[in-house]
């Protein structure tokens, strides 16, 4: 038989949880050259963005250049380039992606990643909650 095995959990992490009281599906998988991340409250893929780091991560560049710096008196974002591959390209979604890169383990990504982010009410509280979940999802 050509098919050797079937497993019912196909990704590094796949879970369903409540974010700001709304059921949210999260799927994460680290491919060899890219990370794939889907966070959706719509039950399907709402959009798909490619995110590339402008500075190669962990390449000896000082933290002050690579970011993020989350200090009350001085903040610096991780420099990234976001490209919308699919779905509605909205400023709020791009801001959300940048926030998650700054505030979660997403900035540990060695290469680039793809993200689908479909949140019904995108605000600071929701994004903080997502960042917290992502820190658990991304080992």
């Amino acid at each position, binding site marked *: *038989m*050509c*098919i*050797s*095995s*079937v*497993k*019912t*959990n*196909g*990704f590094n992490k*796949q*879970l*369903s*949880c409540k974010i700001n009281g709304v*059921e949210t*599906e999260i*799927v994460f*998988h680290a*491919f*060899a*050259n*890219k990370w*794939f991340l*889907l966070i959706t409250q719509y*039950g*399907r*893929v709402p959009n*798909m963005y*490619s995110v590339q780091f402008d500075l190669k991560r962990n390449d000896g560049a000082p933290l002050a250049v690579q970011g993020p710096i989350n200090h009350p008196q001085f903040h610096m974002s991780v420099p990234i380039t976001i490209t919308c*591959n*699919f779905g509605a390209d909205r400023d709020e979604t791009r801001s959300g992606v940048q926030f998650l890169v700054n505030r979660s383990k997403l900035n540990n990504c060695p290469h680039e990643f*793809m993200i689908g982010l479909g949140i019904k009410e995108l605000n600071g509280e929701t994004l903080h909650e997502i960042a917290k979940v992502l820190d658990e999802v991304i080992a």
Partner: protein
Amino acid sequence: MTEENSTDHCGDANKAFTSSQGQLLVGDKKYTVRSLKMNGATMMFLGSAEPECLDEMAVAMQMPQDGQIIGTTILGAQSSITDSQRLAEQFTRRYGRQFFVSFNAQVDRMTAPLLEKQLNEYMRNNKDLFV
């Protein structure tokens, strides 16, 4: 074929996504199939088992007005119809739902039809994982 029957998803059963992973053998080469069944759409990744890359992705869906199948490549080469797009259109036509396909296998004219045949067989045998 061996199957592991443990389910690993939580939350509302009606809403929760279902994912699965399988392996195809073509000659001595191994390929990994990953699927994510969502509400009304399916995402599938097919690639060489080692290293498993993500280079290409396409989406296809059926137009509600005239039933026509429309597909497009959203990641990777845009100059011609990619294998991902061709497969996405084929699966959408067959199963009547939106399909995202990421085809990342290095194949030639000999192995491509064999891989596709095994993929079709795998999907037929495990239809509930995809639709």
